[in-house]
Structure formats: structure tokens, C-alpha cells
């Protein structure tokens, strides 16, 4: 860097109030703050949404399911053997026997389809749902169920009420035809995960109650495998290994909804690209401000050229000043974006539609990597917009500048 460029840069850095806070920069700064703010807010909210969805999906769903190839129930010996094999694998965090099936839940004239998921209530059984139980007991007990809060709401039920389940037994046909089995349970807890599909349909009960509904003796439908954190993204590959390891009659398949997560991630970057165009529009203000600076400081350009400064040196002096203003505005924009996204999360007059967006609340997450990407992309766009009008300095003739001060 030429010492003259360094002198100006030091002045700008040492006295930003005198050299950088100029009225002529106000619209440029406002444009950058707004556009970067919207970009940052969009990315903060989408990052929050992606993380919330990912956390919910991975917490609520098993990552891999193991069951018999022809969907027969597994007896206790089989379950014990399979669990032993699975738990010996380094990737496996837990292997929980479960039964899941669809049934009709009703209360008076209100009927809703539901997904029953049954677990062993004893220590060592499942407890991943307990952190989502918003009221009542999180402990599974015989004759009691934990119900998704939207399902309870739609059925008009609350804690302590009786929920009725109807399950059509296709293999139990009476002389009067197919007769569904009907069961009653007391609601001991309300489940509120934020994942709409679960909160709208899920009913949790004990393995014994599920076996009673299905008329099966101490059998299990499948084994839910949860992987340790770092292995979750490799669920597909790991399930194939399990498939080979478990041998004939059993199959393992991934159930983590990685496709959905990939779509959400893609949407996030699509939003980022679209919002980058806003920064580009703010770039028009930058071009305008730099052009004004060049015209306002014609005398200075003439002096510098007369004293022997080359056009690249003069361009660099102007670029340094404008870039410092822009970088300050970008940082301000990122702070504004944080404030904006925080306000959006805290507001209480608009809620996500859970049936459309899977989750019904907005989350905010400020990822340092995203902030760096926003800063770098906005800074690159700013540099381009600063350099375009600065080319004009090369064409300015000293003599014209001196004769028309």
C-alpha cells in the first residue's frame, strides 16, 4: 500500500466521526442497513426453523427401525437378541422395543385418526418424549395415555378425561361381521412437541396396553434405534449395515426424515440468494454516493493527480473510505437483522400454520458461519459497487478539473 493511501486510511480509522459520518452517505448507509438487516433476519429465522425442525425430527422419530421382513411381531427372545446385537454397535445410542399402529380416537361425536406408539414404562425404556409433555405426568402407566395437545384440543379432551380408541381387527370377524375392539384410557399427560403432525395425532401408551388392543401376547412390533449425534446423517448407510448384520427375516431401514431436512436447507439458501438481490439494490445507493463523492471532491482529485498520484492510488484512497463506511453499515445491518428476527420471534399476533410448516412456532438462531457469509457476500457486492464509479477517476483530466473547480 502506498504511504499516501496508508495516511488516508489511518485518518479514516483514527477519526471515523470526522471522515466517515457524512450526511452524503446517509442514504447509502440506510440502504445497506435495511437490505443486510432483512437478509440477516431471513437467514436467522430460517436457520432457527431448520434447527428446530431437525431437533424435533431427530428427537421424536427413531433414526432406524428394525422389524421382521413380513411385519410379524417379534417375541421377547428375539427382541433381547436383536437389542444385544444393536447395542454392541458403536453408532447406537438406544434400541427400544415399540409397537406402533393407527387407530381411531373419539370423544362423543368427535372422531380423529391417531397414531398409537407404545413403549415399555419400566426404567431403561423410552423417555425421549418426556421433555415434550407439557402438562400432567410424563410417566406411562397401564390404562393411561399421553395425548398430543392438538388431538386433545380437537377431541375436546383435557387431563383426567377419558379417551376412547377404536381399532378394527381385520382377523377377528364375528358372526355379525367385522367387529372393532374398543378401549378406554384416562389422559394422564398432554404432549406438545411443536411438531404439528405428532401433536395432532400421537397417543403414547404402555406396551401392555398396546398388546391388549392388538390381542398379542408379550410381543413387540419393532425396535426403534436412535443413533449417536454424529452418526445421524449416515443413518441410511448404517441401516444397510444393520440389515446385513441382523440376517434373514429381519430388516433395518432409516426413518429419519433427511429428505425434508435437505429441502429446508435448500430453501434457506434460496432465501439467501433472493435476499442478496436486495443488497444489490442497495448497491445502487453505493454507486450514487461514490459518484457524488467524486464530483464533490474534484479539486482533491486534481491536486492528487497534479502532485503525481496515479489513478490507482486515488481510487484506492476513495475506495478505502467508502468501503469502511459500507463495512460499518453491513455490521449495523447484521445487528438490525438480529433485532428484527428477535422481534418476529417475540411477536404474538402471527403464528406458523403447523399443518403447512410442520412446526407452529418461529425460532431464532444466529449462526456465526451464516453471519460471516452475509458479511463477506455483502462486502464483495459493496466493493464491486464502489469500484464501478471509481473508474471515472481514470478518465478525469487534470486540466479540466483545474479550469473548472
Amino acid at each position, binding site marked *: 500500500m*502506498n*504511504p*499516501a493511501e*496508508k*495516511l*488516508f486510511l489511518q*485518518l479514516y480509522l483514527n477519526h471515523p466521526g*470526522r*471522515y466517515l459520518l457524512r450526511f452524503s452517505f446517509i442514504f447509502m448507509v440506510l440502504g445497506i442497513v435495511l437490505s443486510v438487516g432483512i437478509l440477516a433476519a431471513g437467514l436467522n429465522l430460517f436457520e432457527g426453523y431448520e434447527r428446530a425442525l431437525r431437533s424435533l425430527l431427530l428427537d421424536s422419530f427413531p433414526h432406524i427401525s428394525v422389524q421382521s421382513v413380513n411385519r410379524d411381531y417379534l417375541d421377547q427372545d428375539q427382541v433381547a437378541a436383536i437389542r444385544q446385537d444393536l447395542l454392541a454397535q458403536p453408532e447406537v445410542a438406544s434400541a427400544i422395543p415399540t409397537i406402533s399402529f393407527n387407530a381411531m380416537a373419539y370423544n362423543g361425536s368427535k372422531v380423529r385418526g391417531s397414531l398409537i406408539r407404545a413403549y415399555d414404562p419400566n426404567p431403561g425404556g423410552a423417555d425421549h418424549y418426556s421433555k415434550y409433555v407439557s402438562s400432567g405426568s410424563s410417566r406411562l402407566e397401564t390404562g393411561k395415555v399421553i395425548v398430543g395437545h392438538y388431538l386433545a384440543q380437537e377431541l375436546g379432551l383435557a387431563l383426567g378425561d377419558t379417551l376412547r380408541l377404536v381399532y378394527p381387527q381385520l382377523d377377528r370377524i364375528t358372526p355379525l361381521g367385522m367387529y372393532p375392539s374398543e378401549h378406554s384410557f384416562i389422559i394422564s399427560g398432554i404432549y406438545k412437541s411443536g411438531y404439528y403432525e405428532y401433536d395432532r395425532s400421537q397417543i403414547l401408551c404402555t406396551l401392555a396396553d398396546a398388546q391388549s388392543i392388538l390381542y398379542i401376547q408379550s410381543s413387540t412390533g419393532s425396535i426403534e434405534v436412535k443413533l449417536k449425534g454424529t452418526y445421524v446423517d449416515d443413518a441410511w448407510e448404517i441401516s444397510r449395515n444393520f440389515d446385513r448384520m441382523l440376517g434373514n427375516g429381519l430388516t433395518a431401514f432409516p426413518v429419519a426424515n433427511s429428505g425434508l431436512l435437505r429441502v429446508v436447507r435448500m430453501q434457506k439458501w434460496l432465501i439467501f440468494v433472493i435476499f442478496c438481490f436486495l443488497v444489490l439494490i442497495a448497491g445502487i445507493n453505493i454507486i450514487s454516493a461514490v459518484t457524488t463523492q467524486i464530483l464533490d471532491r474534484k*479539486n*482533491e482529485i*486534481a*491536486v*492528487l*493527480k*497534479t*502532485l*503525481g*498520484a*496515479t489513478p490507482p*492510488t486515488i481510487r484506492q484512497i476513495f475506495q478505502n473510505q467508502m468501503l469502511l463506511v459500507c463495512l460499518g453499515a453491513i455490521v449495523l445491518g447484521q445487528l438490525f437483522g438480529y433485532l428484527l428476527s428477535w422481534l418476529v420471534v417475540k411477536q404474538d399476533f402471527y403464528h406458523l400454520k403447523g399443518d403447512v410448516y410442520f412446526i407452529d412456532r418461529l425460532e431464532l438462531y444466529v449462526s456465526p458461519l451464516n453471519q460471516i457469509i452475509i458479511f463477506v457476500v455483502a462486502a464483495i457486492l459493496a466493493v464491486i459497487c464502489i469500484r464501478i464509479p471509481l473508474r471515472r477517476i481514470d478518465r478525469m483530466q*487534470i*486540466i479540466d478539473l*483545474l479550469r473548472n*473547480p
Partner: protein
Amino acid sequence: MIYLAGYSLYKAYYDQDQTIQVLKNATLEVEEGDLVVITGQSGCGKSTLLHILGLLDDPDQGKVCILGSEVSAHQASAPSIRNREIGFVFQFHYLVEDLNARENVALPMLIAGNTKHSALARADELLQLLGLEQRLKHYPNQLSGGEQQRLALARALINQPKIVLADEPTGNLDPGHSREVWQLFHKLNRELGQTFVIVTHDPELASQSDKIHELKDGILI
């Protein structure tokens, strides 16, 4: 030794359908230690001549030589020649408003690639020589017209140029400050042997010099 010379210089300006021929075969040679004054009526082409000699503009015809080598305003080395070989003082001083007195004076040395420390030290020496040692940290708008012009002179001298070109240096000053600045040029010429080419339309000030040329009808007399 001839430091600076312009031979058979022609320059015309074109205004719509009118051609104004300001220089017609003007020739000037400036030797080491000269203090050359160019006078003439307003608009006769004095500044044009100075701009051509200072490599700020090119003549339509003719050539400019510095130390015997032909040079042009559009050659790649022109900025470097303007920086190292020539010092400029203008009527409107053209100081950089964002820089204080020291920094303004040091600027040509910094452009030449010298360190800030050495440039500021040399600027302090010159400002002391020109009686501005109390104004080191002042910005141009905090100085009087005479002080601003002395500051411009200090800036012109900092790279120890072969020649200083001054275009109406007292044109914007009251008589008292004009005499003060003019005496300064003579002092620097006498005591340091600094070569000057000064353009003025003030005959009284011009008469104090030994080498006076009048630009009349585009020709130097």
C-alpha cells in the same frame, strides 16, 4: 544548465465554431537558479503555458524538455515527473481539506513512497522555514489566505523539485499578503537557489524580477 524548456509551443481552444489560438510558437528556456516571471493580460494563455510546461496538458504542437529529455503529459512516467521534478503552486492553492497542514505538505513525499515519519519530519522543517510552525495541526479552513499559500509553497518544495511552477500565486491575496508571498519566492530563490517560473498579471510584483517575459498574442516576448 537548462532545467526546463518549451519549444515552438502551439495551443488552441475550440468553443463551438470558434477557435481561440492562445499559444503561437511560444518558446521558453529556464536555467538552474532562475526566477522567471511571465506576465500578460488575463486570458492571454499564461496558465496554459504553465500547464504545458508542468506536464498537466500537452501542446498541439511543439515540445517540452526537462533536463534535455522530451516529455509529455500523457506519457506513463508523467505522474512521477510531476511528483519528483516539479512543484506546483496555484492561485486557489488546492489544499486537501481533510488533511492538516503537516499532512498536506507531506503528501507529495508520501505519494513518492517515503515513510510517513520522514515525510512529516521534512514537512515540519519546511513549515518552520516558511513561518508556519504554529500551524502544524491546523486544517486549511483554519488558515488565512497568505498562510494557505505558504502552505502550498511548502508542499511544492517538499520533494526538492528542480523547478517550482506558480500560477498567479498572489492572485487571491490582499496586497500585504501578496508582497509577503512574493518576498518568500525571492528569498528561496536567493538563499536556496530554487528555480521558479511564476505567472502573474501584476506588473508591480513582476518588476521585482530579473527575467520577465510577456505573453502577447500567443508569443513570449
